[in-house]
């Protein structure tokens, strides 16, 4: 355990001093902030997708709610964008309840399909509202009016804001992991039917996880808007936003506290590199790579990279299809 604690402390120290190490190199300052923002989104997804095992592929719907709430309070009320974050989070909790009650009854593949469809529905609808800027989207303040507009010359202030949010989110996740709810979620993930038969109200805990996950994904959306100052239906609600959250968490290790952060530390620099090296077409190649990474993880390493460092006795191999029969159908 000593080595693990040492690695953790090293990571914390590195996270705190990173901006000092790269001071004066705007590309790397920005990269650090982007890694943390990606980690916030993926860690939020991890609560419902990793711990509860409900694989949402439509989390962009919450991200978009957060981003649009931030830009709408600026455009229509003149407030600083960050003031939209609590509104976006509240709306997302509400939305999670509306989506979750019918769809969380579905299991496995059905739930994933439903989340994709809901996100697409919202994306198409959002481009028809003049209030949300239609297909063109909306922009935040061009010039900072007060410090609350969070408009900075360098990315370093964003870095520390994101770091604080991520630390809070990971702390909360750690607390849940070790609470009664954490045990319930793991039980549901292993076998919902078994968990139910032991008296876990699976529906309720899945919904709690979904709402919490939605709220923090919305916060990631609002923070994104503060940093980038612009959102349109594609960058808010597009399926690639959902994909990034899932891939980061799955690469590092879904259902593991630091899995999403590890995934973000690998994938965000990769994306930035291929975008700057390959230009416009690089965006396409990035996602070819993402697709290949997802396939390889699913095929060879379904528990993610962090599982490589775990020393755990080999779990007995499940019989082929044994869990599918129990959990593969809507009940």
């Amino acid at each position, binding site marked *: 355990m000593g080595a693990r604690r040492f690695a953790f402390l090293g990571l914390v120290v590195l996270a705190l001093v990173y901006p000092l190490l790269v001071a004066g190199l705007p590309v790397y300052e920005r990269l650090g902030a982007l890694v943390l923002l990606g980690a916030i989104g993926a860690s939020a997804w991890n609560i419902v*997708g990793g711990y509860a*095992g409900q694989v949402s592929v439509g989390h962009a719907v919450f991200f978009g709610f957060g981003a649009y709430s931030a830009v709408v309070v600026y455009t229509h009320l003149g407030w600083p964008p960050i003031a939209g974050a609590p509104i976006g989070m509240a709306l997302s909790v509400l939305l999670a309840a509306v989506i979750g009650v019918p769809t969380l009854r*579905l299991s496995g593949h059905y739930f994933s399909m439903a989340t994709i*469809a809901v996100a697409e529905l919202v994306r198409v609808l959002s481009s028809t509202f003049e209030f949300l800027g239609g297909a063109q989207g909306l922009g935040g303040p061009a010039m900072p009016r007060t410090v609350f507009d969070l408009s900075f010359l360098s990315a370093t202030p964003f870095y520390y804001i994101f770091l604080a949010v991520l630390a809070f989110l990971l702390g909360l996740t750690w607390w849940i992991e070790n609470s009664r709810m954490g045990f319930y979620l793991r039980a549901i993930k292993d076998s919902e039917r078994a968990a139910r038969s032991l008296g876990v109200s699976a529906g309720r805990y899945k919904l709690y996880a979904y709402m919490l996950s939605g709220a923090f994904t919305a916060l990631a959306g609002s923070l994104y808007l503060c940093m980038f100052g612009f959102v349109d239906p594609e960058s808010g609600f597009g*399926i690639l936003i959902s994909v990034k959250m*899932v891939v980061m968490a799955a690469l590092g290790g879904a259902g593991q506290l630091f899995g999403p952060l590890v995934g973000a530390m690998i994938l965000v620099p990769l994306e930035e590199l291929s975008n700057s090296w390959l230009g416009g077409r690089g965006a*396409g190649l990035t996602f070819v790579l*993402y*697709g290949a990474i997802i*396939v390889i993880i699913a095929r060879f390493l379904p528990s993610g990279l962090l599982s490589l460092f775990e020393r755990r006795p080999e779990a007995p191999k499940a019989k082929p299809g044994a869990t599918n029969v129990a959990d593969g159908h809507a009940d």
Partner: protein
Amino acid sequence: MSMTLVQVIVSGLLLGAVYALFSSGLTLIWGMMNVVNFAHGDFVMLGMYTAVVVWTALGGGPFAAAPIAAILIATLGIASYFLLVRHIMRGPMLAQILGTFGLALFLRYSAFWYFGADFKTLPDTLVGGSFVIAGIRFEGARVLAGVSGLAITLLLHVILTRTMVGSRMLAVSEDATAAQLMGIRPQRMQALAWGMAGAATGIAGALIATFFYTSPTVGETLAILAFVTVSFGGFGSVLGALVAGLIIGVVESLSAYLIGPVYKDVVVYLLFVLVLWFRPQGLMGKA
């Protein structure tokens, strides 16, 4: 009923038959092995690009493109089964979903990288322009696509329910172990299902390309349409997919005509959410 409304319903039915064709592949695989192929829409997209390439490189129409697309996508399906799906089926739920989802991204952005983002269309005159019967205007391409879609979906249904191969596949889907004891090889049947699904999907793609724009991301929209059709018709039922495809084609055409083209997707997605809410087993599925 006004003539325009009849026109709208007829084109909806023709479109719906094509939806039925490409959805039947998805429902076949689900019925065989409880796996959703999230790359399904991108299989259709590759079928469409096959038609575009056959036309630009060889000058061939859909009659040349459809068999080529059928062979290509069937091969892709069988390869996906042996290299990926066969292994992830036994893994955790996350791996089952992410596996084909990753394949979807890989295919979609490979097409994006290779063909570019711009929309490609085949010439209108490729399938004999349009004609008018009893005051209703028919476009050659849509009639060909609709009629072939209907015929091939029915053929697939007949193969699955009336032939020896179909019975073997049914046996594997009911109980793979028992089927194996009866001398049926489950993996061979499952691979066959992926091949048949791929062939149907490839043909559907080649047909759609004659009247629809082809782009790398078209698969996303088509995948959702297939999810809607399959959940509406009941997972695993080809006949259900046929009925549901026709209904969705008409609903889409009617809502585009009555509410506005932008809202046709909205109406179909809402329908999906309602079906999942109230009848997750589908219209024709067993409760």
